[in-house]
């Protein structure tokens, strides 16, 4: 395979936009002939899983049109999990099996239905054994999918508070003046203020 063809192949693969012959010329070492290399490269990819295709007056490597069906799964939109969901998930992971009331107690705010539903739907948490306490409340535990997603071998491998602290993820002490803020938060025991309070203490 010609050196020029190799170079054109690498550039076509790595560029974020289709690239014109003129731009190719500018990027290749002096004296190269990208137009000719493109002809060869195009032929080389004939009948393959991807093709060298012309897009307007530029060139790109694209999936062979008959294989588009393979690409369907790729069109996923990823969104960040909400803070409430992350916190709830973290509590389940660290305290499992844990009941909804316990989650609420730890977070200091009520847990909305949507939050738990979302985690169940993601299959990151599932229902565990019922607790042997009055009312026999249902508990939540994390799933194998959860472990896979977060690259953990078991929930026991989650770092503890001391390790979080050592990694710099957890501050040792409240910021100076924290006393005053705390008192202010204390006077109103509503969800809102508890939430606001934690934001004040964050970082």
């Amino acid at each position, binding site marked *: 395979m010609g050196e020029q063809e190799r170079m054109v192949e690498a550039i076509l693969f*790595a560029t974020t936009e289709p690239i014109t012959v003129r731009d190719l010329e500018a990027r290749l070492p002096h004296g190269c002939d990208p137009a000719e290399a493109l002809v060869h490269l195009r032929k080389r990819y004939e009948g393959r899983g991807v093709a060298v295709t012309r897009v307007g007056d530029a060139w790109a490597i694209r999936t062979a049109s008959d294989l588009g069906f393979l690409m369907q799964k790729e069109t996923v939109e990823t969104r960040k999990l909400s803070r409430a*969901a992350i916190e709830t998930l973290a509590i389940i992971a660290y305290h499992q099996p844990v009941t909804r009331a316990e989650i609420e107690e730890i977070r200091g705010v009520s847990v909305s239905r949507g939050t738990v539903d979302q985690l169940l739907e993601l299959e990151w948490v599932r229902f565990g054994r019922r607790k042997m306490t009055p009312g026999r409340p249902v508990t939540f535990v994390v799933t194998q999918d959860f472990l896979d997603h*977060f690259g953990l071998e078991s929930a026991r491998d989650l770092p503890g508070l001391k390790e979080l602290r050592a990694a710099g993820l*957890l501050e040792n002490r409240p910021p100076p003046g924290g006393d005053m803020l705390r008192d202010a938060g204390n006077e109103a025991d509503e969800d809102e203020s508890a939430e606001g309070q934690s934001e004040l203490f964050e970082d």
Partner: protein
Amino acid sequence: MAENLFEEDKVSISERLAAEALIVDVDGFEGPLDLLLTLSRTQKVDLRRVSVLQLARQYLAFVEKAKALRLELAADYLVMAAWLAFLKSRLLLPPDPTEEGPSGEELAAHLAFQLERLQAMRDAAARLMARDQLGRDFFARGQSEMVTRVRKVTYSATLLDLMQGYARIRTRDDFRPFVMDRESVFTMEQALERMRGLIGYAGDWTEISTYLPEGWDGDPVRRRSATASTFAASLELVKEGHLEIRQSEMFAPIQLRKRD
């Protein structure tokens, strides 16, 4: 004597410059082991054959020099100095058969091992960073293709998000016992009960502050709570027709009197 002089001369210029560089640069070292490693380079031998005794002397001399220049040395440098002085004495004195513990040679060998291992990791790190790297020497696909628009939303979160979330809650948790702390609250019910018992004696105008319960006037938090509830209780008693209340101007003392 002549030999000593000769030695002195040989040491001069370049090594002295190096030694001075060490002194000036003491902050640039990542701990005593790093400093020892740098010192060991002056011996210009394989780390396996490094003279630990000589190294200990160099280190101690370095610490002395730093002291003479009144440079602040971190505690761990001094701890290492103490340990090396101990090691030096073990290496120099004939072994005492009655003494327990490892011999000077064993300790020296371990220190040499530590130095060699640290150097090995430094070299490994350099080799690692010299490798071709993604995004610098080789590249990923520029246009990740997503042809068909099947919109499916997935939610992502990293382990870091998870841990930070948990840390956030638990940090808040650390304060919880204080948040729930109700010891410093003097309730209005308590104040009312107290005032009812006292107003019988309030014949003339008396400042409200004298009605504060005992032991509640020191700590500002307690004082604030007691003042608020006593004031609220007073208003309640005024409303019930047991008390009169007055204040001559803004921020002036509030006074109470029994109503006949």
